[in-house]
């Protein structure tokens, strides 16, 4: 059986059971839409995490008794480290001013004690610096007398990483649920289609059709259902993204310093191909169970 005949027969099948296929595709679009939205969230979260990890830095808080020579010596040590790209000194007054600016507290900040705004050295680190190394550097710097505390932000990055991992796991589970849903919906659709086409199948067998000839169009129908549903869901997700982007973009940029982006081409390809594959699987399982040719 050539491809043209197979597709012609699958198209005929779609035509004969149009309502059945439309209902099935509509249900699948909802499932794929949920998956697409979750993927969109995780992809953007991953981008934020990646950027923040790349632009990593460290804050060295200085004690109130730190002299200028202590600070100069400390800067010398820090400048000699290959992981450190830049060192900036922030005195207590500047720290207070920055806090007042960021929190929009204005004159109210003046009532806070001086200990609340210790002088610090802000270190910009190279992207190549790994977590273990940064922790070690932090521990070493802590041993200086002039240093009161060191903030490496590793806990914060760890929390972001955990959130990302949890998001990825949630998407994995959602993808599995969607796959089960697609297999079930397409399996049922094909089962009903087989029942509707008993007479056709009998005619085919009496005319000398092989099992493969009978089964292949049903598999193609399953693939087409999966593909159609995944493509439609991505189109809907794209429309929603474009219409909502303007409303949330400012907030997102303020919070994360990054713009929201749509799913990457590989993810889109993965969703579409996955839809087709799961459609084929659902159809094949259903035929195995319900079509005795």
């Amino acid at each position, binding site marked *: *059986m050539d491809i043209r005949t197979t597709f012609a027969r699958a198209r005929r099948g779609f035509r*004969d059971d149009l309502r059945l296929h439309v209902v099935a595709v509509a249900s699948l679009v909802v499932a794929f839409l949920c998956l697409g939205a979750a993927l969109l969230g995780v992809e953007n979260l991953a981008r934020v995490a990646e950027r923040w990890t790349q632009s990593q830095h460290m804050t060295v808080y200085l004690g109130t008794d730190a002299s200028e020579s202590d600070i100069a010596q400390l800067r010398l040590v820090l400048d000699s480290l290959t992981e450190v790209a830049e060192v900036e000194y922030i005195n207590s007054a500047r720290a207070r001013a920055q806090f007042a600016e960021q929190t929009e507290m204005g004159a109210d900040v003046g009532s806070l004690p001086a200990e609340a705004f210790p002088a610090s050295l802000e270190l910009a680190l190279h992207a190549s610096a790994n977590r273990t190394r940064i922790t070690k550097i932090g521990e070493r710097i802590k041993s200086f007398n002039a240093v009161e505390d060191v903030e490496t932000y590793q806990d914060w990055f760890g929390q972001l990483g955990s959130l990302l991992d949890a998001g990825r796991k949630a998407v994995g589970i959602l993808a599995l649920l969607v796959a089960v849903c697609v297999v079930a919906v397409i399996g049922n659709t094909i089962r009903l289609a087989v029942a509707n086409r008993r007479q056709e199948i009998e*005619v085919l067998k*009496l*005319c*000398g*059709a*092989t099992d493969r000839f009978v089964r292949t169009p049903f598999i193609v129908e399953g693939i087409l259902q999966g593909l159609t549903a995944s493509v439609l869901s991505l189109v809907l997700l794209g429309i929603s993204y474009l219409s909502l982007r303007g409303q949330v973009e400012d907030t997102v940029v303020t919070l994360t310093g990054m713009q929201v982006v749509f799913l990457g081409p590989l993810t889109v390809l993965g969703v579409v191909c996955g839809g087709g594959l799961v459609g084929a699987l659902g159809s094949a399982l259903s035929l195995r169970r319900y079509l005795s040719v």
Partner: protein
Amino acid sequence: MARVNLDGSGAGFRRTDSHVRGLGRSNPNQPAEKPLLVMEDVYKYFRRDVPTLRNVALEVKRGEFVFVTGPSGAGKSTLLQLIYRKHTVDSGRILFLGRDVARLTERSIPFLRRNLGIVFQDFKVVPHWTVYENVAVSMEILGSPVRVVRSRVAETLERVGLAGRGNERTERLSGGEQQRVAIARAIATEPALLLADEPTGNLDPALAIDILTLFEEIHDAGTTVIFATHDHALLQTSPHRLIVIDEGRLIEASQGLRAWSARMHSLSA
């Protein structure tokens, strides 16, 4: 003479459309050929103690037209179903194109059926398909190119008196026309043997004669036909070879219809 594909497990039957033309035709200039169909000592049981068919022996030569008749439940349909392997013989053998049908594997049965055209009492057409789709399906199964299918379907519809009606939905046709569609589907691939299982059973007498005439025209073109019917009126209109099945036994009405009628008369007396 028929060309038979002998490529492995296909059991010697054709697999594709590559040698459809002329497969079922007999050539009067050829010397005596092997029979197309041979049944030897065939038994079939559906109940353990009562054989539906017993000790059946039959030879059908290429180009023959054979009537198979007998009362309802005598085993006419079973005889045909054994040929197209809907059922398998319990003993004996059936040779079609020199191959033992009973010994075919499940995978080879489609290739057996591609050499047969089968027409049923209940037509077995797909009602929501068009006439074209119903006829073309037998050629699509053979893998014929679309262009060939189009021209052959048009040609076949003309042969059965449905020229130009390919786009009509089959369910909108009358019973006689639906049977013509079924016949067109059966002959589109020019099968070696055409099996008709009570093809006029659902039709009124005038239409039945029309359908029989159509089968005779197909036979005149060289196709071998086995036509099962219990309609005596049809048998009286045609002088073809006659086989009677009575209580599972096959009786050759060798002196024609008159001798068979006499036997039927004696059986009923």
